[in-house]
């Protein structure tokens, strides 16, 4: 599970005459990763696309254009179509038929659209002209007169007053600006134009007519025309809507089918061909070699020959001997159903190399675990689980799925930690009392004694049974680990988790080098690092024992310290063979890496701190309480209104903590995988295994025939 699937290289040779059948057969296997042919001196050249591809491309272009015209969204939900039906329809020219129909409707709508635009511009002209006391026929039909009609930015009246040989009509209002119509003898036109130019004159065209019609009357008729066109436009849109509904699934299906046909038709561009044959180099999973060989030979008979070339081991030396295009082996991650959901997290860094451990499994284990450790609260865990499960059910988007999967499994861990480790929900312990001298008592910091911490037994006014308290671990006082009370314990635990996590990383590195270059190289490359790491941990442990716990440096402690120093020197000596002085410089890095895991406790604390403050605001300041025998008690019955208000505030405040938990918890859990764990062994830069296969969403094969390949 940890190492990518073993791959073998095969060569598939066949006769060019049956290449189309061969392509269909290769696609049906869904396990053949083609190695692109590079032209060499072997007498083979790159093939040409299949004959039908060009026609298919042309049709696909038409289909996509229609989808755009009809406004069919990329992810529109449509019914699935049968591939056989679609192929028959495409062959019989349905695409062209539908195109004719759609184009006709689209053209009709576009014509109407243009007409409405024209009418609207005419309407604007008439609206301006109706401000002048003239009928429309007066604006044209003169021999010796020039007519200038247009808008002005200032009142043109004074400027035109003294104009000779002219009749001027103007109107101006501050809101609608001005209009001017000047009828002037042709000889004096320039003079008039000069006067108008000063008023910011912009000429407009007036509809030519011989009828004595007032602009206002013409406007009424025009409005009726616009109304009529708008009605027609609505009808045209409706017709397009009908076409969209009618052809949507056909177009989506055809789009997919043609795209697949083009992809398959372009395969010859990636393989070597000669006059009569083709040669395909490909990687296939080792377990499938025999099956693929048998399948292809059954389908294509004597027209194909499959030769097994090699099964690539994980040794790097083997890779170096190969010619460039066979050097890199594609990585097919060996993931189960759940692990697959975490592949995205790995791919964000890089695709694992064929010769190294795939960290996906480790991410699957530790990412939700760390998330759960940091959140550690039943109250927040349940919404996480529900949201995660819902996300996994509805979404197919890779980004959202990866978030949902962390929320779901992280939520489960958060619940486990919250219930059995911290013993709390919504930042409040289940059990607030402490067991002192055979009796359960409220501690000093508890709200019952005027403190700040709130607990569920105080709110509910119950005493939980002893067996329940027995489930929870006790470190300081009280049942369950207090995120704010048992800080030292949580920090220590985080450091121990870090040591284990880092050791796993280093051992993965050791295994990687062992696979790639053998045991000796592994010991020299990673053995020293592991020895240094363990020795450093032991050395630091003896130091903390001496400094914080005041254990005298003698006996066992001294022995451990001496041994750790000896191993530290040995480790550094081994490392320095490769790294030189950097081996010494790396030593503080070990402590840095381990201390980095204290963020697990720090983030748990920060959330607990916020929750404590919010709970005190709600229960200490807003909720009604009463004091009996010096003990503050929760008394909801005294003011129901306040209780409801406080609950609303409570929900809102905890929503803030919950949202922050996703961000900080999720990101820091991921960071610990990426930075602390994966840098210890992961190199990446692998090639993703991309087998030939048809990705069908909108289409399906009604008869499960082998892509219509005739048996030979």
């Amino acid at each position, binding site marked *: 599970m940890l190492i990518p699937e073993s791959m073998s290289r095969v060569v598939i040779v066949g006769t060019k005459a049956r290449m189309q059948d061969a392509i269909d057969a290769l696609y049906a296997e869904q396990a053949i990763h083609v190695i692109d042919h590079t032209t060499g001196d072997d007498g083979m050249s790159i093939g040409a696309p299949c004959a039908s591809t060009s026609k298919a491309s042309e049709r696909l272009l038409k289909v996509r254009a229609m989808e755009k015209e009809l406004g069919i969204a990329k992810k529109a939900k449509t019914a699935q179509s049968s591939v056989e039906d679609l192929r028959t329809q495409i062959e019989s020219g349905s695409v062209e038929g539908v195109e004719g129909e759609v184009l006709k409707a689209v053209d009709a709508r576009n014509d109407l659209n243009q007409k409405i635009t024209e009418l609207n511009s005419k309407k604007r002209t008439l609206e301006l002209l109706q401000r002048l006391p003239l009928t429309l026929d007066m604006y044209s039909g003169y021999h010796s007169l020039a007519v200038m009609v247009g808008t002005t930015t200032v009142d043109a009246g004074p400027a035109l007053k003294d104009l000779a040989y002219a009749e001027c009509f103007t109107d101006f209002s501050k809101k609608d600006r001005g209009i001017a119509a000047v009828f002037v003898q042709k000889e004096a036109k320039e003079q008039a134009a000069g006067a108008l130019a000063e008023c910011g004159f912009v000429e407009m065209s007036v509809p030519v007519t011989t009828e004595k019609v007032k602009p206002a009357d013409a406007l009424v008729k025009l409005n009726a025309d616009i109304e009529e066109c708008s009605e027609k436009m609505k009808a045209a849109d409706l017709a397009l809507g009908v076409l969209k509904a009618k052809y949507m699934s056909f177009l989506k299906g055809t789009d997919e089918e043609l795209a697949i046909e083009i992809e398959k038709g372009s395969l010859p561009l990636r393989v070597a061909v000669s006059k009569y044959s083709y040669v395909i180099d490909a990687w296939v999973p080792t377990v499938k070699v025999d099956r693929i060989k048998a399948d292809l030979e059954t389908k294509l008979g004597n027209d194909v020959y499959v030769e097994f070339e090699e099964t690539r081991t994980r040794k790097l030396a083997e890779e170096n001997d190969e010619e460039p295009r066979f050097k890199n082996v594609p990585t097919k991650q060996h993931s189960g159903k759940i692990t697959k959901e975490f592949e995205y997290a790995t791919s*964000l860094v*890089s695709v694992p190399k064929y010769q190294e451990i795939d960290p996906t499994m480790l991410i699957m284990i530790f990412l939700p675990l760390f998330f759960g450790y940091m959140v550690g609260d039943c109250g927040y865990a349940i919404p996480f689980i529900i949201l995660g499960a819902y996300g996994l059910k509805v979404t197919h988007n890779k980004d959202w799925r990866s978030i949902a999967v962390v929320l779901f499994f992280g939520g489960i861990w958060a619940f486990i930690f919250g219930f059995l480790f911290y013993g709390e929900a919504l930042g409040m312990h289940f059990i607030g009392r402490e067991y002192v001298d055979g009796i359960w008592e409220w501690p000093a910091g508890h709200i019952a004694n005027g403190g700040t911490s709130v607990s569920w037994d105080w709110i509910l006014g119950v005493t939980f049974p002893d067996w329940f308290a027995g489930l929870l671990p006790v470190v300081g006082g009280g049942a369950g680990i207090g995120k704010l009370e048992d800080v030292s314990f949580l920090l220590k635990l985080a450091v121990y988790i870090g040591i284990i996590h880092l050791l796993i990383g280093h051992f993965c590195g050791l295994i990687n080098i062992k696979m790639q270059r053998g045991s000796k190289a592994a010991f020299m490359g990673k053995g020293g690092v592991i020895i240094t790491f363990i020795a450093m941990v032991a050395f630091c442990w003896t130091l903390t024992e001496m400094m*914080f716990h005041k254990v005298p440096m003698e006996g066992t402690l001294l022995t451990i310290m001496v041994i750790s120093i000896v191993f530290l020197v040995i480790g550094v000596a081994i490392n320095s063979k490769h790294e030189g002085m950097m081996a010494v410089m790396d030593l503080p890095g070990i402590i840095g890496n381990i*201390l980095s895991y*204290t963020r697990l406790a*720090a983030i748990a604390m920060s959330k607990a701190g916020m929750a404590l403050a919010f709970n005190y605001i709600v229960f200490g300041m807003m909720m009604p309480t009463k004091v009996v025998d010096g003990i503050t008690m929760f008394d909801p019955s005294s003011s129901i209104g306040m209780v409801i208000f406080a609950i609303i505030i409570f929900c809102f405040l905890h929503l803030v903590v919950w949202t922050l938990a996703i961000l900080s918890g999720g990101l820091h859990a991921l*960071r610990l995988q990426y930075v602390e764990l994966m840098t210890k062994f992961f190199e990446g830069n692998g090639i993703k295994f991309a087998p030939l296969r048809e990705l069908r969403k909108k289409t399906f094969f009604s008869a499960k025939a082998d892509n219509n390949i005739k048996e030979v």
Partner: protein
Amino acid sequence: MADATQAGLIAIGAGLAVGLAGLGTGMAEKDVGAAAVGAITEDQTLFGKAMIFMVLPETIVIFGLVISIMAIFVM
């Protein structure tokens, strides 16, 4: 009185430790973050690597936090 002063000084020290470390982290992440966003805009597949570089300086603030916790709980 002496105890209160001592406790106060420890609290100030703890605050400074985490506060200044946070400031340092912020300054380091400012530059890395700007470059990371630029790189991701160019090529989305760099997200994972950019994030690794982005969060590297975070360790500094964790050191500050550890020191401040030790100051409060151990001293």
